[in-house]
């Protein structure tokens, strides 16, 4: 027992050591990310001191860049399941090597999402009020309580599956199916649930007709299943370039096929929403009008959303055309969809829900400089975590980092 614990601790120590050793480019990248993270931390400390007045949020637009990024990142985390389903349910061979990369990505994305929620709170020191039985947890009625539960459990699920499989690989032992397979299947359903719960957060509010629509959940899932794999496709190529890990092009093209379908569905759902809102032309349409055409002279979001639509449509065309069978065009499509969906789902979903206010007032929102620094800091931290996770797990997957023989025998 003690020996097993010692082995595990030595594994962790070696992982830590590896995170600090690398090429010049690696040091430059990590320093860059650390600098951005520290700037974000500094900005957050200022926000703690002065309050959320340091952001651009007001009583009229009370959720902004933080919740926008949170929504987007929960979607990215859910998209890891797009890798898990083919490999575990359909025994797809091409994606086998990259499943764990996807799950590691999910861990980083969930950590980022949770951090975005924490920086959005007015009283983060009262975080313990959310803990069931110790605080007062309004479950199952409040959708935010569901979100807290499912996000944390999803994080634990992925950490367990990845940690277990990686450690078994390190120990050069065959992983016991019972210890990871049920969790993998649970995580498939769970991934869809985290994003659906996040959608329900918005869709359940009767006072906000822009969000109070049944199509919000499906739109969330569909757009997540494009942006997530797109991000993974891009990061797989980075991994291929900067490490010895072999990733076949086939893995990327299998993901492309999945993204084709998801992007088609996502765009179709968007067209549905567009038609219903505009054809009905009722008072409930005001937020949509503000977003796409401007309302009463206020049109700050109009260029953003049309850029996002253009990006998404171009990405759709590229995905569908055989041209994207070449890596160059596939990359372009991925970048366009990642950015386009970030705009559409982040700023293009959260902000118009508040404009006009339920009393008809229009107050526009621009994130403040401090707010942007915090967002950048959290993204940098997420990339930092993702890089560390990859830096430690790729040697394990390649078999280069493994337990010493004499340790294993004992």
């Amino acid at each position, binding site marked *: 027992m003690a020996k097993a614990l010692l082995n595990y601790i030595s594994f962790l120590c070696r992982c830590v050591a590896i995170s600090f050793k690398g090429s010049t480019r690696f040091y430059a990248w990590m320093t860059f990310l650390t600098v951005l993270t*520290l700037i974000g931390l500094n900005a957050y400390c200022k926000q703690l001191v002065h309050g959320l007045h340091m952001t651009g949020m007001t009583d009229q637009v009370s959720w902004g860049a933080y919740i926008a990024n949170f929504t987007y990142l929960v979607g990215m985390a859910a998209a890891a399941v797009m890798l898990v389903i083919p490999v575990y349910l359909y025994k797809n061979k091409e994606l086998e090597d990259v499943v764990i990369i996807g799950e590691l990505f999910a861990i980083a994305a969930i950590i980022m999402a949770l951090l975005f929620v924490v920086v959005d709170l007015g009283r983060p020191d009262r975080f313990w009020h959310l803990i069931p039985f110790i605080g007062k947890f309004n479950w199952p009625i409040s959708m935010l309580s569901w979100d807290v539960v499912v996000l944390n459990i999803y994080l634990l699920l992925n950490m367990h599956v990845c940690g277990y499989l990686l450690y078994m690989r390190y120990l050069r032992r065959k992983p016991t199916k019972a210890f990871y397979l049920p969790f993998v299947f649970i995580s498939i359903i769970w991934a869809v649930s985290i994003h659906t719960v996040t959608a329900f957060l918005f869709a359940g509010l009767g006072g906000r007709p822009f969000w109070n629509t049944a199509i919000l959940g499906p739109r969330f899932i569909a757009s997540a299943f494009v942006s997530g794999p797109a991000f993974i496709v891009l990061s797989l190529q980075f991994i291929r370039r900067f490490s010895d890990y072999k990733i076949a092009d086939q893995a990327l093209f299998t993901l492309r096929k999945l993204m084709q379908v998801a992007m088609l569905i996502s765009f179709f759902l968007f067209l549905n929403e567009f038609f219903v809102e505009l054809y009905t032309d009722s008072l409930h349409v005001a937020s949509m009008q503000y977003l796409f055409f401007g309302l009463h002279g206020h049109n700050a979001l109009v260029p953003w959303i049309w850029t996002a639509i253009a990006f998404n449509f171009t990405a759709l065309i590229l995905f569908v055309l055989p041209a994207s069978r070449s890596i160059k065009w596939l990359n372009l499509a991925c970048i366009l969809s990642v950015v386009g969906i970030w705009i559409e789902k982040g700023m293009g979903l959260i902000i118009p829900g508040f404009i006009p206010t339920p009393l008809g007032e229009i107050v526009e929102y621009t994130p403040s400089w401090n707010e942007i620094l915090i967002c950048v800091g959290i993204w940098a931290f997420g990339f930092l975590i993702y890089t560390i996770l990859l830096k430690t797990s790729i040697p394990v997957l390649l078999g280069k980092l493994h337990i010493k023989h004499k340790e294993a025998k004992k």
Partner: protein
Amino acid sequence: MSEENKENNDNPLNTGPISRRDFLKRGAVLTSGITAMVAALSPLKQLEDTFDMEEFVQKHYKELTPKEMEGVLKRIAKKVEKKYGTTPNVQDIKPQEGVEFSYALNLSRCIGCRRCVHACVDENNQSRSPEVQYIRVLKMPQGTMDMEKGDHHYNVKKVPEEGHFYMPVQCHQCEKPPCVKVCPVEATWQEPDGITVIDYDWCIGCRYCEAACPYWARRFNFSEPSIPKEKINPNMNYLSNRPRSKGVMEKCHFCLQRTREGKLPACLEVCPTGSRTFGNILDPESEISYILKNKRVFVLKEEAGTLPRFFYYFDK
């Protein structure tokens, strides 16, 4: 690259032959990194309030014993005295039996003078900078209830203006409040006398309730509220008008520090045209029951299903 890996395999902690220069260099990098992190945290030294352990571990309002509540009220009184120089009377008045409050507003009488807005600010110790106002008066053109056509910022010499009517909106203390549904920590709930209250020491400031309210009735303290010392109202109540901290929600609570003692709310008393009526809806002899029986009342956004306790009517 392979040399490095060999080192990995032989030496788990990589502490092998490491030169002193190398060690010092790594140490310097680590130290500079930690210095940068500590410097990043430097704004925290500006945090004004010292950490209050009692407030940190304080239980939810509904779980406080009467003795604990006494201690809490004393602590709040001490803080207010220290900050504002006045000795407040901080109480926790429980709701009366057989009382359910309701409010009615005569839209034919309201002239949009906004005195209710400022009387409320005065009575309830709301922040002046940044501004927190529970009541918002909409100037509406006659002939429509479309609030998009309303003007919140009218600034004219005299009111009322021809061809318009004025509609003040504040928390309606709904029977089916969406804000109570969505709060993840139950920091807001509805009391037996119908008032939806907030425990300011329990709220985590996630602002989900603000997004959920169909009447834009809830306000958030984006920074530390600032109230001029001479304007502090010393008659305070735990659930209503004691000074709030930054990062928590607040909203109209029907002046429960007054109404639970039988008095009329501040907005009603200051209204120069007497447009407002308040009372116990369970009492068939009350004024509010008279209005609900005899006037043609309506509520805002009835389709939202919130069942507000705030009724509007036109009655020239």
